[in-house]
């Protein structure tokens, strides 16, 4: 067991972890932050995407020990009080979610795209989301939501 310290959604936390413990396990099981989901065991589905030092990362594919000293943002850390982040608001407005299970990963992944490209084309969005699987929406409304969310983020700057 080793002790790691990191910042999660602006708050300093520490946890005792085994060498094999994954970042997502720390978030869900040690910190009780269950907004980040696990949808597969092969790093394919993207339900577990969080930001580590500002970059989107599949938290099922990063050892907790690797996250020592980093700053992590999860879906729980996006909204400002009751006010949704522009990307969250766009997902609601464009019905970019149904069961909600892939949604946290989709939103976190989409935010990094929006930071890189404030006006992504449909093609850009579809390519970028290759690593996030949704079984409910057929992606149609997710694409619309991400485009609108990216524009809203740019406008809010």
């Amino acid at each position, binding site marked *: 067991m080793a002790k790691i310290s990191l910042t999660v959604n602006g708050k300093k936390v520490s946890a005792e972890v085994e060498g094999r413990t994954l970042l997502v396990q720390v978030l869900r099981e040690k910190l009780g932050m269950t907004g980040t989901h696990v949808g597969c065991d092969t790093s394919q589905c993207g339900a577990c995407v969080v930001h580590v030092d500002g970059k989107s990362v599949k938290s099922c594919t990063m050892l907790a020990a690797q996250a020592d000293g980093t700053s992590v943002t999860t879906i729980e850390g996006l*909204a400002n009080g009751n006010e949704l982040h522009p990307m969250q608001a766009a997902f609601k407005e464009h019905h970019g979610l149904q069961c909600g299970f892939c949604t946290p990963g989709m939103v976190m992944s989409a935010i990094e795209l929006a930071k890189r490209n404030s006006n992504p084309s449909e093609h850009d969005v579809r390519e970028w989301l290759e690593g996030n*699987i949704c079984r409910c929406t057929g992606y149609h409304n997710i694409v619309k939501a991400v485009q609108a969310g990216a524009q809203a983020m740019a406008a809010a700057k």
Partner: protein
Amino acid sequence: MAIDGIGAAVRRKEDYRFLTGQGNYTDDISRPNQVHAYFVRAQTAHAKIVRIDTAKAKAAEGVVAVFTGPDMAADAIGGLPCGWLVKNKDGSPMQEPAHPVLALERVRHVGDPIAVVVAETLSQAKDAAELLDIELADLPAVVGLVDALKPGAPAVHAGGNLCFDWHIGDADQVAAAFKNAYKVAKIDLVNNRLIANPMEPRAAVGEYDRATGEYTLFTTSQNPHVIRLLMGAFVLHIPESRLRVVAPDVGGGFGSKIYHYAEEAFVTWAAPKVGRPVKWTAERGESFMSDAQGRDHVTHAELALDKNGKFLALKVNTIANMGAYLSTFAPAIPTYLYATLLAGVYTTPAIYAEVKAVFTNTVPVDAYRGAGRPEAAFLIERIVDIAAAEMGMDRVEIRKRNFIPTNAFPYQTPVALQYDSGDYFATLEGAMKAIDYAGFEARRAAAKKHGKLRGIGISTYVEACGIAPSNIAGALGARAGLYECANVRVHPTGSVTLFTGCHSHGQGHETTYAQLIAERLGIGLDQIEVSHGDTNKIPFGMGTYGSRSLAVGGTAVVKALDKIVDKAKKIAAHLLEAAEADIEFKDGKFTVAGTDKSKSFGEIALTAYVPHNYPLETLEPGLDETAFYDPKNFTFPGGAHICEVEIDPQTGVVKVVDFAACDDVGRVVNPMIVEGQVHGGLAQGIGQALMEECVYDDKGQLRSGSFMDYTMPRADDLPSFKVSTAITLCTHNPLGVKGVGEVGAIGSPPAVINAVVDALKDYGVRHIDMPATPQKIWAIVNGGHRMAAE
């Protein structure tokens, strides 16, 4: 209409919690002092269990207990029950072999649970599982459903591999019609086996309260009351009064979370054994080998035509795979949800279908989005295209010539169902317009210049949903009723909670049902909460599947609202000193007709709970009404899907370049949600047509056992969709609703394959089995088409 009532594209009430990470899925639930269960599963498809030595595992660090099949058998725990009895042609019952919760003596498919390690942590449970000493003696396995019926095939169960041999329709009438046929179109096809793969893997937490004797099961279910009934009555023998089943937020189901699964029974049984809550969550790999799978038919069909291209008769012979055991509703899928739809949208006067269901050493098969109806639509719409080719007729023309005329409803098909309403011409026209069908040949020519092969394919389909009239279902073998229940509870200050027996796992019920209530009671959506998924809160319910939540569950809501309004009128009449018959209720106000005397809905609610001035001698206080609604008929959504594909002959990759769906789903309550449902169904249908396939090797090893091997449609595999509706109202429910959950998955696969075949018409292709992978297409284009197609 209320602002947020029927027809409004209201943004969803449930989204805030999902978007902020505050959804409450089963794996998010941790109970104090809980332990973790890890299931040890068969890694071979068929074997005798020679010996299981648990001693070392039991001694491992953190291990609380290890259980095997005999431990459960010693408690007289029942097997997992099947909820539908199908009879053979001769009237005898189907073969219904036992399905033990944990394997006894034999394992029959990869993933069959053999033992469970319960430990303080999941890691400890997994580590200890490595110490189990399990000796299995491999037996020959049968995997393919055609092989299962061959003489000498390894027997999955003592009674052999035939589950049932069933039929429907008039064989003599069909034979006579074929004698007079001008042409006969024939097809042999496979409907590929699929895996539902909702993004949330299944999970269960079992808990037992020694003080009250109450069991609680949190589970990823589409129908918690059904699980309570099946598990309580047949498996664990716990009275409903002491068994609470909670299906909290559920991350998609698509059918796979209807059934009662071994893990649910195990954690509930084990909780008092170990004296602590027991939690299990599937890894995705476990989902692949333990969630019920879908489809898996092999079919031969023939369609007889007269010289004008009118369909005279259809005969169908299907073998359907049940897998190793009967899942909860498995026998109903390839029979009553499949063969009864073989008329499709056409006036085919004579139909005869034979269906043999077989056991194989594979994961059990049951309903997956559409369930039987996609198999019927695929067969019909493929053979109609083949018939058009045989006749030298246009594919649109042959369909229109055989459509059930719009003025012919109600229409009795030769395979039991009576369609209440529909307009197949309107939906076809809608889809053709949306995709610019008339302009297709120009696009084909343009693509050809760039070395690409373009094709267009049509599918016109109907389905039966709103499952189901209980008396009909019962006569056909259902062992349950299929009504739905709604409890509308008006609170003293006029806010409302709906308790519904349906369950939302993506469908947006919290919004759609609230719209029904807002419309009827004239109150704001923020005054309405929808509660589902907890058997301790909801009076009863049959759950959500078969596109039933609005047609059946929504009608129950309407019926409960009727009772609320009736009672509220009585209270209003008393307060307003008027006759009940003179009270009008509109926009949330009770008014004495022809006067300006009125009371608001909130005032009536308060009076009901503070009955100081109240007709107590004739009316009970309170405003809380429950309705059970049993549908009079199925509903019949239908429509037209048109797919345009472009094939790169260099790579064999099929790109869906455009897709238009025009569906008749009955009245639309929330168009935004309806479109979303269609989008999702289309993605699954296109997935089936082009990508998805559950593959076993000849020993029964699951080769498509992860997202790295099973091709899930991703964002860059799909286009944006052109979705529209052209509705007719359902005639037998008060909302006129039909259902939308499954239309996308039912209508789209044949549209895609018809388009692929059209694109490849110069290569002499008549049919391609799904999925139309680049490998198959490349082989056809590059001369190896005998490998991949007829």
